[in-house]
C-alpha cells in the first residue's frame, strides 16, 4: 500500500504535537470557544452574533490560520533543516510521504479547528443545531482543502508560511470579500458554501454555488497534492556555504 506509511505518520505526529508548539494552534480555537461562551452568557441584543463570530472569526481566521500553522509544519521544518533526508534516503515512495503527512495535517486540523468550531456552534446556538453541524461540515472541507494547499506550498518553497499568510490575509481576507471573481479561488468560500448547503437560512452568503465549491475544492486539493509529490520526487540538497 504505497499511499500511507505508518513510520512517517508516527514521526510527523510526534513532531507536530510534541513541544509547546501544540499550544500555538490551540489558542485560536480556545479564543473561539471562549468568545462564543461569553457572548451566550451575556445574551447580546444582536441575534446574528453566532453567524458573525463563527462565520467571520471561525472561518476567516481560526480555520485557515490553524491549517496554515499545521499544514506548513508537517513538512516545512524537515525540509528546512534537512532532516527530511532520513525519510527520503529510503525506498519509501514520495507519494506515501506526502499523503501520509497530509493525512496527519488534516487530522490535527480537525482536532484543533473543526471540533472547536463545532463546540462553539453548539454553545452559540444552544445545542446540536443544523447551524452548528453545517459549520462543522464546512470546517472539515476547509481542513481538507487548506492543508492540501499548505503542504504543497511547503514542498514548493521555503517561504511557505509567508506565502500562506499572504494568501489567507490578503487574498481571502480582503480581495475575496470585495471582488466576486476572487471568490472562485478562495478556499474559505468553498468551505462556507458547503456549510450553507447543510444549514441554509443562516444568513451567510458564500457567494459561490455548492456545485462550484465542490468541484473547485476537489481540483485544488488534487492539484496541490500532485504538485507536492512531484516536488518531493525531485528534492535537492543544497551544499552549505562552507
Amino acid at each position, binding site marked *: 500500500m504505497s499511499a500511507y*506509511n505508518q513510520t512517517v505518520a508516527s514521526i510527523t505526529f510526534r513532531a507536530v504535537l510534541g513541544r509547546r508548539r501544540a499550544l500555538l494552534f490551540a489558542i485560536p480555537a480556545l479564543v473561539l470557544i471562549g468568545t462564543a461562551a461569553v457572548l451566550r452568557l451575556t445574551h447580546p441584543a444582536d441575534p446574528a452574533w453566532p453567524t458573525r463570530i463563527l462565520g467571520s472569526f471561525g472561518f476567516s481566521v481560526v480555520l485557515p490560520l490553524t491549517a496554515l500553522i499545521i499544514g506548513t509544519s508537517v513538512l516545512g521544518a524537515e525540509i528546512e*533543516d534537512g532532516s527530511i533526508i532520513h525519510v527520503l534516503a*529510503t525506498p519509501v515512495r514520495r507519494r506515501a510521504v506526502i499523503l501520509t503527512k497530509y493525512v496527519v495535517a488534516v487530522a490535527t486540523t480537525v482536532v484543533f479547528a473543526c471540533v472547536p468550531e463545532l463546540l462553539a456552534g453548539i454553545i452559540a446556538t444552544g445545542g446540536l443545531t443544523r447551524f452548528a453541524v453545517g459549520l462543522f461540515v464546512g470546517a472539515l472541507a476547509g481542513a481538507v482543502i487548506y492543508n492540501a494547499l499548505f503542504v504543497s506550498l511547503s514542498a514548493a518553497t521555503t517561504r511557505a508560511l509567508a506565502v500562506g499568510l499572504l494568501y489567507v490575509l490578503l487574498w481571502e481576507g480582503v480581495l475575496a470579500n470585495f471582488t466576486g471573481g476572487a471568490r472562485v479561488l478562495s478556499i474559505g468560500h468553498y468551505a462556507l458554501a458547503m456549510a450553507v448547503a447543510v444549514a441554509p437560512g443562516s444568513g451567510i452568503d458564500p457567494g459561490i454555488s455548492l456545485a462550484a465549491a465542490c468541484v473547485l475544492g476537489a481540483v485544488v486539493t488534487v492539484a496541490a497534492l500532485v504538485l507536492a509529490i512531484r516536488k518531493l520526487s525531485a528534492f535537492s540538497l543544497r551544499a552549505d556555504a562552507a
Partner: protein
Amino acid sequence: MTGIELRGVSRWYGNVVAVNDITMTVGPGVTGLLGPNGAGKSTLLHMVAGFLQPSRGQVTLGGEPAWRNPGLYRKAGIVTERESAYPFLTGREFVRAAACLHELADPVAATRRAIGLVDMVGPMDRRIATYSKGMRQRIRVAAALVHDPEVLLLDEPFNGMDPRQRLHMMDLLGRLGGQGRTILFSSHILEEVEQLSGTIQVMVAGRLAASGDFRAIRRLMTSRPHVFLVRSGDDRRLGAALIGRPAVSGVELTRGGLQVSASDYGAFAAEIARLTRDEGIRLRELLPADESLESVFSYLVSS
C-alpha cells in the same frame, strides 16, 4: 560489488560552476574525496546520493541512475554534513524508524546491530536532543548502516568528533571497506583521508585535480615548487644572484620584496644563506608564501 561511476558530470548554479566536468570511478574499498572548503565535494556527494541533479553528465551506482531513484537506497546509505536528526526521538527510535522505512524483515535486530557498530548502545535510549555533536553523527551513521548497504556515502563524517571517536569511526569504516563495500567520504583534512583511504580523489574548485593512493598524492604535494618572499638590503642584486642557482626556478621583483620559487627548498635554504654572506647583502626577511592548503591544491590543479 557495486561501484559508483561519474561521467562528465557538471553542476552549475547560474554563473557559478560548483562541479566541473568530473569523470571518475569509485570501486569497493574506502575512497577519500579531499579538497578545501568550497571545492564542490558536498555538491558531488549530493549528486552521487541522488539528491541533486547534475546539470550535465551521468551519475550511476551499480549501473542504476542516482537521480530520482528511491529504489537505489536499498543498497546505499547516506550521511550528510548537516547534523540534523529528529531531536525528540531517542537514538534507538531514530535508527528503528530508518529500519522500518527500509522495510527490513527484522527491524529490531537490525537496529541493535547498527547501534552496536557505532558504539552508541549506552546512550541509545536518551533523546537525540541530549546528544553531543559527535554522538549525533554516530547515530546518523547507524541509521545509514541499518539496512546493511553496499555503498556508503559520508560528507565530512569526522566533524565534531573527538580523537577517540574519530579513531573508532575510522576503524569502523575501514572494516566496512575491507568487507568489499564501496565507501566514499569527503574531508578537507589530509591526515584523515590518508589514514583511511586506499584511493584519494582530490577536488579543487570543482575539478578533479589528482587521483591516486596517498603516497602518490603526498609526493605530488611535496615536490611542488615552494615560493618564498625575501626582503633584503638589495633585492635586485640578490635576485640576479639567485636566478643563477639550480635550486631556484624563478625570481620576481615585487613591491613587497623578492618572490623566489625554489624547486628544492632544502638546497635553496643553504644557498640563500651563503649567497647573502658572499655578496654582502643583508637579509631582512624570509617567509614562505604559499603554505596554505589552497595553494597546495591550486598547484595540483595546474599540474
